[in-house]
């Protein structure tokens, strides 16, 4: 897995992590690791919320949420599309024709970004090449074998990380990706800790909420530091620690990530029958 493969700003390339790894195969649990991540992401969306959706796994998560516990959620796409009723087909990009036909609104990028800046968007999904201890994200500069590697850049990621009420990140859980300090803050998380966001001038009601990885789910404590909140089934705590680039703290209420429910899985598989995003 080469994490220097670019990320579309508001897409999670996290699935590609799973794709090439042994864990990607369905090991008798009845769902793939990507499907587990999608289910976990779907549960970050509450009914009626406004969601910056993105593509790939988060898109699936939004669709699963819509069909299960959050039928009133609204999807916003930074190209200017807003949808209450999801597109009837699998999308490769947010401007694929099925995403425009029957949309709630087709407008400008500014139309959608304005709602974000007004503070009305509840949750935004992001991918990243790197996330650090304080939830800062990097999609601009990577490194490989000591060489700097130019990644595609922010896209809308910086905007979403600055302005949405909650940010949820999806990515592969490796030491190269979960790092002590990102090389470049493309999208600010909690900076260097408590009160940092307010000191920067970022909105009071904004910031990172969860990091969903291939091994578990991280959430943030009062000091703004990420800690392990749930661990995926069959994953060992030492594996999580070994694959994290800083001494990862563990929540006192650590639990096992609940596996996808049948209705979540069937929704996912109906949307993506060939497992293009989750199973291939």
């Amino acid at each position, binding site marked *: 897995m080469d994490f220097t493969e670019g990320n579309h*700003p508001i897409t999670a390339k996290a699935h590609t992590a799973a794709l090439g790894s042994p864990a990607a195969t369905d090991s008798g649990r009845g769902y793939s690791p990507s499907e587990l991540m999608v289910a976990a992401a779907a549960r970050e969306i509450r009914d009626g919320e406004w969601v910056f959706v993105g593509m790939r796994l988060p898109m699936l998560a939004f669709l699963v949420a819509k069909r299960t516990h959050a039928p009133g959620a609204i999807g916003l796409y930074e190209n200017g599309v807003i949808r209450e009723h999801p597109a009837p087909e699998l999308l490769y990009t947010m401007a694929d024709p099925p995403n425009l036909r029957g949309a709630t609104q087709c407008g400008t990028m500014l139309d959608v970004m304005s709602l974000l800046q007004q503070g009305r968007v509840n949750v935004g999904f992001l991918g990243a090449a790197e996330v650090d201890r304080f939830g800062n994200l990097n999609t601009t500069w990577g490194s490989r074998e000591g060489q700097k590697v130019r990644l595609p850049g922010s896209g809308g990621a910086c905007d979403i990380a600055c302005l949405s009420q909650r940010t949820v990140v999806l990515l592969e859980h490796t030491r190269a990706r979960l790092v002590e300090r990102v090389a470049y803050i493309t999208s600010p998380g909690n900076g260097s800790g408590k009160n940092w966001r307010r000191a920067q001038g970022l909105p009071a009601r904004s910031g990172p909420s969860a990091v969903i990885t291939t091994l578990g789910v991280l959430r943030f404590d009062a000091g703004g530091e990420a800690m392990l909140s749930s661990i995926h089934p069959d994953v060992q705590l030492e594996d999580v620690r070994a694959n994290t680039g800083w001494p990862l703290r563990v929540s006192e209420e650590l639990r096992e990530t609940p596996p996808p429910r049948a209705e979540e899985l069937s929704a996912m598989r109906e949307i993506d029958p060939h497992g293009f995003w989750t199973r291939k």
Partner: protein
Amino acid sequence: MSNAAPDRTSKMMSMQQAVAQHVPDGASVLLGAQLEQMIPFAAGHEMIRQRKRNLALVGPISDILFDQMIGAGCVARVQAAWVGNVSAGMGYCFRRAIEQSVPRAVEMVDYSNFTLALVLHAGALGVPFLPTYSTLGSDLLKSNGEMREFGSPFSGEKLVAVPALTPDVAVIHAQRADKHGNTHIWGNLGVAVDGARAAKKVIVVVEEIVEPEVIASDPNRTVIPGFLVTAVVHEPRGAHPSPVQGYYGRDHAFFHQYHEQSRKLEDFQKWLDRWVLGIRSRGEYVEQLGECRVESLGVREHAYSAPADFGY
């Protein structure tokens, strides 16, 4: 302008003419204003064929067009939020240019999507800057070199000032226009409207030329009025492999093939010869795509908008 020849208001010309006349070396050029829809590939390819140099490309995300133009050596500077291949990942030519200065060094001015929209909005509004909370706390704000933190004149609270940009040329692909450049676009508009208003010149590339009465029947759909337009190019399928709502779908495979075929420099050169340099026009490009591929991208089910009555 005082010459009242009958066709004096027609702005139609070939892509070759439009690019030759209105895109000089060194120009700043807005491309890909509607993000993944209606990317003006035909225009970009003509710029490559005419060996334009030192262009400053502007656009939120470019979905491989910027990558191709960078790889072809046309580009000195990129002002964008994201450069790559939306459905496949990295743009390899972009990486080679930034990391190894191959085929030449390119200056990257990183924006976010929102702040890139704001530079054009400021240009369209005619103000020197616009304020935003976005990018506060990011390294993007520090490394970008154009945006600046300042205090609100009312409360003193921190804001970012995003400077106005007025590109030399905006190239906008659209569904239909009349010969005067009055242009209908539907679907997601991205930064096309502000881009066309901010730019000093506007080249509109359309799937269809229609009678002025068709455009005038719906003045709310005329998001780019003809008086802002410098040239109108009729170039059907000029946005392939990106989609044009109501005309053709996205050629996902083409993006993936480009991804594979641009990974190595020598493969990219072959790709460029095959799809750009070795052909003379969009017509030849479409021929090379083949009838079957073109057919398969066509509209399978029409979905017409309900009429609006402008009568009285």
